[in-house]
């Protein structure tokens, strides 16, 4: 049995769909952020797998994943700062209850 590209893309696709499901159903902001991380991570896997299988002598996919990881870390840190600030203001981080900035 050979392990081809699709053997890696299918788990990554399932991970992405889990991220979509969690992002729609969760109400807690941190749980939504966790679902977002799942989606980002599955895209990273796709970059690496395509790089490894289709263009093995270049490093483009690997570097794109590297930068994506760095940006995801920055984005998560900032989002958590915002969430903690919201918690301080309203003692609650359910998205349905945070409506002060709604027009």
């Amino acid at each position, binding site marked *: *049995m*050979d*392990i*081809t*590209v*699709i*053997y*890696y*893309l*299918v*788990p*990554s*696709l*399932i991970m*992405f*769909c*889990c*991220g*979509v*499901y*969690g992002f*729609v*159903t*969760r*109400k*807690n902001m*941190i*749980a939504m*952020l*966790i*679902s977002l*991380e*799942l989606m980002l*991570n599955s895209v990273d896997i796709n970059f*690496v*797998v395509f790089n*490894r*299988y289709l263009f*093995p*002598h270049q*490093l483009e996919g*690997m*570097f794109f*994943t*590297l*930068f994506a*990881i*760095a*940006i*995801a*870390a*920055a984005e*998560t*840190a*900032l989002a958590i*700062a915002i*969430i*903690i*600030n919201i*918690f301080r203001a309203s003692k609650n981080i359910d998205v349905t209850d945070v409506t002060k900035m709604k027009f």
Partner: protein
Amino acid sequence: MESVGSIIMYVIIALSIVVFSVLTVTTRKILRSATYLLFTLFATAALYFKLDYEFLGAVQIAVYAGGIVVLFVFSILLTSHPGHSSEKLVSRKRVLGLTLALATLVIAGYALISRCSVMFAKLPEMENPAMSKIGETLMGTGAGEYLLPFEAISVLLLACIIGGVVVARKR
């Protein structure tokens, strides 16, 4: 032809990715959700190691599993009661989420199947990218080299630090 050990490794990695990512979004205790996310990220790092990108796997463990998950756990402990479960989903919301997820699955799965010839490419031979090659690619200015994005990322991280301090400080 892959060796038996390689196939067993693949099965373990793929199963843990699928199982833990499903558990991440279905468990009702949020601290458990963060823990399952950690396991998913570890499985992804193992996948990078299996595909011979050792540097990337190390970065994945250090930044994601070491940095981001710790941030998540701290913010969960700061903002919610650890033993507290989220309330049961209303069925309308669950149906909406399932519909969207299944639609994504079907569309992307169809796109995968309709590109069969690429999807069954064999694993080509590759030398592990040496650390010196990675460093030169990261710091070079030629075609296919990444000094400019590297500098942009450093400015982004600085902006992020300042933004985090400004947003989260006590007034």
